[in-house]
């Protein structure tokens, strides 16, 4: 296989909100910046974000960044690092206003300021309330508008895009410095080394490890797989946010509005089971209560369908008129993805993965940090991460709605700024090792070699089913223990994947095999970390340890691929300038 080499000051892997924001900082500083992306930038998953971006602008009434900070710490169930959370909340207004100046078409108030929507968990007065309107949006297309605005700006700044290129592995120098990535150009099938003096990962989430996910097909956790294979740990991978009602077998979201309007859940006996779990709020109980009840029904054999693996959301009693008027789009979604018309039949639903809180460990400057000579947060030279693939950690055990887009802007920019400084201080390209691409080429050769036999399709399906059944929204000790065993078996099978199609141009079979290898790393990290954490916190909810346990578990998990080793590091409870927010019960 021919091996080309290209040199840049900086390589950014990923063209979602985080990657584009970082690249802009670099290109505008006059640095030669390459952005590598599997799909056209504006088709990144950020396009799906509708709810908005959170920032304490105070346009709708009193608001302060300290309140936003408090809500985020509380939302994280105290697992978030308070230095990073302070940075997020303090910088949010600045990056939102900046985006406005870049031309982002935010909705506006009559006085011309940005309109802000209410969103769950955002309060005034350090959690005391009342609720505050903090979410800035562009109709229901906030993510879409953000991508377009940032993409245009990057084109103007001279960012070089490598579209339909897939980064495959990190390239490391002998001293441990990151020197770029190997990448596959889909159009030709060639592998190249993209050499960089600084490398940023902004590859998004890995929701596709679960059978039920709202994430698009591209969200395969490639950045996490690459980092893990290079020997770096992944942080807090047991924490995944679920939405209670995704269409079973498809993942597409059914809005909470359906239950708000009077829809309710049924088990296989036709019982309205939420009455048992939450006698007052019933189907309107909070997301985690509803999801847990659904998971319990399914685990105890009261799920519906041939495999007993979903429950039903009934809304036909609302009548056609109300459904069409108050719940627009729901009928189309149900017909298309569940094959039922909800004015007659109930929709099969399951708790569905939505957001990955964990990721590649970073500090609030976007630098990747790992245990080393300088303590638990030793900076890896030349390596940066931002967005959903990174763990700064601002979301801790549970993300607050609208804080992800804030994260992309704040930490995308911060990482870009840090890289600019690093590049000033470290001129010149270190020598590439002679074997820079060997690991990647061997991996590809193995896919096409005679030793394989495992099908990408089969192994992928088994992986997603196992994750769903064993590390779902409500976690049971027996299932977790069994899950660890199974995921390791699946990982072993994934070492022997084989693809029949050995052509070069747009060989999607090869791409999918390479993606599956990344999914496997993320799944292992998730299952092993979840089995080990013997408490419930935020989105990690165990049947056998049902309380948060600060005495033993107020710490971050670090999973290493080698031997599935786990290590832990302290949560940073010390903000940058304000007083620490001490742990207390998280009640809403």
């Amino acid at each position, binding site marked *: 296989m021919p091996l080309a080499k290209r040199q840049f000051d900086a390589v950014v892997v990923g063209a979602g909100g985080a990657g584009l924001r970082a690249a802009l900082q670099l290109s505008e500083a006059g640095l030669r910046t390459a952005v590598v992306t599997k799909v056209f930038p504006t088709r990144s998953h950020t*396009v799906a974000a509708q709810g908005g971006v959170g920032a304490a602008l105070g346009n709708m009434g009193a608001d302060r960044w300290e309140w936003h900070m408090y809500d985020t710490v509380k939302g994280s169930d105290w697992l978030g690092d308070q230095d990073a959370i302070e940075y997020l909340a303090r910088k949010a207004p600045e990056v939102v206003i900046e985006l406005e100046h870049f031309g982002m078409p935010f909705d506006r108030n009559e006085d011309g300021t940005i309109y802000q929507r209410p969103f769950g968990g955002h309060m005034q007065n350090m959690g005391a309330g009342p609720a505050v309107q903090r979410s800035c949006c562009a109709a229901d297309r906030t993510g879409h508008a953000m991508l377009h605005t940032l993409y245009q700006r990057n084109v103007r700044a001279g960012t070089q895009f490598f579209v*339909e290129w897939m980064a495959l592995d990190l390239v490391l120098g002998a001293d441990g410095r990151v020197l770029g990535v190997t990448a596959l150009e889909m159009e030709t099938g060639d592998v190249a080394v993209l050499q960089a003096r600084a490398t940023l990962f902004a590859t998004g989430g890995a929701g596709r490890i679960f059978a039920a996910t709202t994430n698009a097909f591209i969200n395969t956790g490639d950045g996490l797989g690459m980092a893990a294979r290079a020997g770096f740990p992944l942080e807090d991978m047991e924490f995944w946010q679920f939405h209670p009602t995704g269409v079973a077998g498809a993942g597409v979201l059914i809005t909470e509005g359906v239950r708000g309007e009077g829809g309710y859940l049924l088990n296989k006996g036709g019982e309205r089971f939420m009455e048992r779990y939450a006698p007052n709020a019933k189907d309107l109980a909070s997301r985690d209560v509803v999801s847990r009840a659904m998971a319990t029904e399914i685990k105890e054999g009261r799920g519906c369908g041939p495999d007993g693996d979903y429950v039903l959301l009934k809304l036909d009693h609302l009548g056609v008129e109300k459904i069409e008027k108050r719940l627009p789009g729901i009928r189309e979604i149900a017909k298309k993805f569940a094959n039922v018309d909800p004015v007659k039949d109930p929709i099969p639903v399951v708790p569905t993965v939505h957001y990955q809180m964990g990721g590649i460990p970073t500090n609030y400057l976007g630098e990747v940090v790992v245990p080393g000579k300088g303590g638990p947060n030793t900076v890896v030279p030349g390596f940066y991460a931002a967005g959903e693939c990174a763990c700064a950690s601002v979301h801790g055990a549970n993300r607050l709605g609208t804080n992800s887009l804030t994260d992309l802007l704040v930490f995308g920019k911060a990482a870009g700024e840090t890289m600019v400084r690093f590049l000033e201080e470290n001129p010149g390209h270190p020598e590439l090792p002679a074997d820079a691409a060997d690991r990647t080429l061997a991996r590809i050769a193995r896919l096409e070699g005679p030793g394989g036999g495992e099908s990408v399709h089969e192994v992928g399906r088994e992986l997603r089913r196992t994750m769903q059944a064993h590390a779902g929204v409500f976690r049971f000790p027996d299932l977790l223990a069994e899950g660890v065993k199974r995921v390791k078996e699946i990982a072993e099978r994934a070492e022997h994947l084989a693809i029949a199609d050995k052509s070069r141009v747009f060989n999607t079979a090869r791409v999918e095999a390479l993606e599956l290898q990344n999914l496997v790393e993320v799944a292992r990290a998730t299952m092993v970390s979840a089995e080990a954490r013997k408490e419930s916190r935020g989105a990690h909810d165990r049947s056998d340890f049902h309380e948060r346990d600060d005495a033993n578990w107020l710490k971050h998990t670090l999973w290493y691929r080698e031997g599935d080793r786990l290590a832990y590091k302290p949560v940073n409870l010390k903000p940058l300038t304000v007083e620490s927010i001490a742990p207390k019960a998280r009640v809403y």
Partner: protein
Amino acid sequence: MAGEVEMRRLRWRCRRGLLENDLVLARFLDKHGQALEGARLAAFERLIALDDNDLWDLVSGRAECREPGLQEVLAWLRAA
């Protein structure tokens, strides 16, 4: 039918930012991929060149499209 390489390129371009589109386009290709050539192929390429939200609005019937040349393929997409 489009050439083999062309089909594979199309298949990749059906990887989208919205899960809804991913699912519909994958089904569409399984069902109608064979019939894509000439004007139909061109129509399909124009549709998938749209932004994700615009494409989903068309497919889900939230928006209409007046261009006669796109109607047949759009109808297939809506039925997929």
